[in-house]
C-alpha cells in the first residue's frame, strides 16, 4: 500500500530525513516511533503530499506521489498532531466540505457522518461552530472526517494525544476493523505501550535515519518495546 524508498528531506544543512525506506502492506498497522525531532512528522507530511522532498520516492498503491499526487491523496486520509480545522465552519459544514472533496454521495455521507459522529459522541454538537470546540472535540472531528470517505491508507500523527479514553478505544477498534478489510494504518506515536499492543509492524527512527523496522514481535522479542527503544536510541 505504501512504499517509501530512500526518502531524503533536508532543511538547510540539516537532514530531517536521511535515506529512509519503509514498506507498509495492505492490512498493516504500522507504528512509527522516535524522539522529538527525529523526522516522523516530516516523513508523514511528505507521504500525504504536504511537504516536497529532496530525493527518493513515495509510492501509494502503485502510484508515485511525485507524479500523480491527486490520485494518491484520493486514497489517503491524514490527521495531523494538532487538529487545526476551519474554525469559521460548523462541524457539519466541515464534514460536508470533506465529503464534497472526496466525492461522497448524499446518502453515503449522511450514513457515515451519522455512524461516526454517534460513536464519537459528536452528533449533538455538529451544528456548532468549530471555534466553540475543545481540543479533544476538534481531534474527534478530524478523525470522523478522515473515516467517512473510507481511505485505503490512514496516516496519523500522534492520533491519541488529546483523546479521551473512550474515543481512543473506539479509534483503535476502527484501526483493527479497517485493516481487517484491507486498508493500512501508518501512525506516529510516543505511546510505546499502545504501539506494542496495536501495531503488527513498527519502525524506530532517530535523527532522520531508520534504526529498526519490521514485525513488532521480531523486533522486541521477549523484551518490552520501551527497553528496545531505549537500547537502540541510546547506543546509536
Amino acid at each position, binding site marked *: 500500500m505504501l512504499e517509501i524508498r530512500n526518502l531524503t528531506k533536508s532543511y538547510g544543512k540539516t537532514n530531517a530525513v536521511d535515506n529512509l525506506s519503509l514498506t507498509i502492506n495492505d492490512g498493516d498497522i504500522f507504528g512509527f516511533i522516535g524522539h522529538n525531532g527525529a523526522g516522523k512528522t516530516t516523513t508523514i*507530511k511528505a507521504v*500525504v*503530499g*504536504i*511537504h*516536497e522532498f529532496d530525493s527518493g520516492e513515495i509510492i501509494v498503491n502503485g502510484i508515485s506521489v511525485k507524479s500523480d499526487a*491527486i*490520485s494518491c*491523496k*484520493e486514497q*489517503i486520509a*491524514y490527521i*495531523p498532531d*494538532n487538529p*487545526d*480545522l*476551519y474554525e*469559521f*465552519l460548523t462541524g*457539519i*459544514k466541515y464534514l*460536508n*466540505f*470533506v*465529503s*464534497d*472533496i*472526496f*466525492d*461522497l*454521495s*448524499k446518502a453515503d*455521507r*449522511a450514513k457515515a*457522518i*451519522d455512524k461516526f459522529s454517534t460513536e464519537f459522541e459528536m*452528533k*449533538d*454538537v*455538529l*451544528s*456548532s*461552530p468549530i*471555534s*466553540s*470546540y475543545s481540543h479533544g472535540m476538534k481531534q474527534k472531528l478530524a478523525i470522523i472526517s478522515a473515516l467517512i470517505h473510507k481511505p485505503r491508507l490512514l496516516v496519523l500523527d500522534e492520533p491519541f494525544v488529546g483523546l479521551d479514553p473512550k474515543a481512543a478505544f473506539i479509534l483503535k477498534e476502527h484501526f483493527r476493523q479497517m485493516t481487517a478489510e484491507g486498508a493500512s494504518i501508518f501512525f506516529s506515536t510516543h505511546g510505546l505501550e499502545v504501539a506494542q499492543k496495536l501495531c503488527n509492524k513498527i519502525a524506530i527512527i532517530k535523527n532522520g535515519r531508520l534504526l529498526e523496522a519490521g514485525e513488532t514481535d521480531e523486533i522486541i522479542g521477549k523484551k518490552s518495546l520501551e527497553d528496545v527503544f531505549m537500547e537502540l536510541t541510546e547506543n546509536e
Partner: protein
Amino acid sequence: MNKFISLTKINLIAALRQMNLLRRRAANKHGSAFIGIVAIMLLALMAYAGWFAYKISSILNPIGLEWFVLVALLFIITFFVFSTSLYTVNSVLFESSDTEQLFAYPIPKYQILFSKVLGLVVENWIVAFVLALPFISVYGYYVHPPIIFYFYALICILISPLIPLCLIAIISYLVSVLTSGTQFKNYFNLVLTIGMIAGITVGLNRIAKQIQLSNISASSILSSIKTYYPPLGYAVSGLYKINPLDMLIAIAWNVLPFVLLCGILSIFYASLRSRVVATKIVKGGKLTFGTSSKLSALTKKEFTHFFHSPMYILNSCIGIILITIFSITSSGQGKGFKALVAALNTMGASSTQVALITFLVILSTANITAPSISLEGKNLWIIKSFPVNPMEALMAKLAVHTITLTPLLIIDSIIVTFTMKIGFSGFIIVILSCVLYVVLGGLVGLIYNLHFHRFDFINEMQVVKNSASVILTLITQLATAAAVIFLYWLINQFVAFNFYVYTVIIMVIALGAIASLYRYLYRKSEKLFLQL
C-alpha cells in the same frame, strides 16, 4: 521592566513579520528588493503629502491662514489612525491567539495590556511621522518658526494618535460585547461598526458646516476646533502660537483620557477579553447534507471564511464600499459633486472619463485575494493533504474576489450611468474596464500571496492589513490605474486620441495580462503550492 520590554518587542515583531521584512532580511532572499519597494512607497507617500501641503500653503499663505496646514496634518493623522485602527485594536487587544498563553506566565496582566497598546501606538507613530515630516517642512519653509516649534511639533505627532485609538478601542469593544453570543454576531458587528463610523462622520460634517457658518477668521476657526475637538484644537493653538499653556492643555486632552482608558482596561482586561472571545456551544440542531463539486465546495468554504470576518470584509472591500458611496452621492447631485464634475469637465475630462477614473482608482484599494492564501494559516494542511488541484483552490479564492466585487460594480455603474449621464456606451466602457480590472487585481493578489506569505500570525488583522502581499497588491493596482490615466494624458499632449479607442486597446491589453497571469498560475501553482 525587562518582561515589559520583551513583551513589547514580541508585539512589534509579530506586526512587522507579516510585512515579511524580518524574514526576507534574514533569508537574504528578495530582501533588498522588498525593502526597496517599501522605501519607495513611503517616499512616494511623503512626496505626495509634501505636494499636498505645499499646494494648501500656497493658497493659504497670502491670506494669513498658513497655520491651517497644521490643522490639516493633525486631522489627517487623527482620521488615518481612526480609520486604519478599525478592528485592529479589537484584534490585538482581545482576539490575539497569544493572549491566553501570556496570561499563564508570571506577568501582571496590565503589563500584557500595556505592551500590546504600546505596540499599536508605535505602529501609528511610524505613519504619523511619515505624514508629518513633509507638512512640518512646508510650514517651516513658509513661516520660519523658532526651534521650539519643532519640539512642540514632535510632541503633537506623538500624542495625536492616542485619542483615535481610545475611541476605536471603546467602539470596537462595545460592538463586540453587544453582539457576542448572537447567531449573526459578525454581521451585526460589521453593520454596527459602519453605523458608528457613519454617525461620527455625520457629526464631523455638521461641525464643519458650523465652522463654515461662523465668521472666517483665525481666532474663530481655532476656537471652533477647540470647542468641538479640544485634543486637536489646543495642539494646533500651541503649535501656531508657540503657546506653552495651550500645549500643556493639548497634552492633557490627548494623554489623560488615554491613560485613564488604559488604567480601566488593565483592571478588567481578563474579564473583558473573556466576554469578547466567548463562543457558545449549541447542542442539537438539524444536520443538513448537500453535495457540491470540488470547486463549488472550495468556493463555499472561501465565502464562509470571508463573510465570517468583518475585518477581512472591511479592509479588502473598502474600495467597493467607497465606490458605492460615490455612486449614491452622485445621485444626490449635491453642489460639491456638481462643482467637481464641472471642474473636471472644464479641464477636458468627459463624465465617462471622470466616472471611469474614479472607479479604477478607488477600486485599486479593493482586493480579497491578496491575503487569502496567508489566511489559510494553520489550516493549510487541509487543502495540501486533500486531493485538490492547487489551481482549483486558487480559482475558488479568485471566484470570491470576483463574485463579491462584480455585482456591486454593476449596480454602481448603472447608478452613475443615470446620475452622470454617461450613456449606454459609457456604461459599457465603465463596466467592462472595471470587471477586467477586478479579475486582473485578483490574479495579481494571488500571485503576490503565493510568493509573499506567512502563516504564523497571531491574529488575522496582521494579515489583512499589514501583510507584504496586501501592500504590494495595493501598490501594483494603484500604479496600474495611474499608468493607464497618465498614458492617455501623455498621448493627448501630442495628438487628440479617441477615448473609446484608447479604452478598447487598454482592455485588450488587460485581457492579455489576465491570460498571461492565468497561464503563469496554471503552470506554477502546483510547485508554488507545494512550497508553501
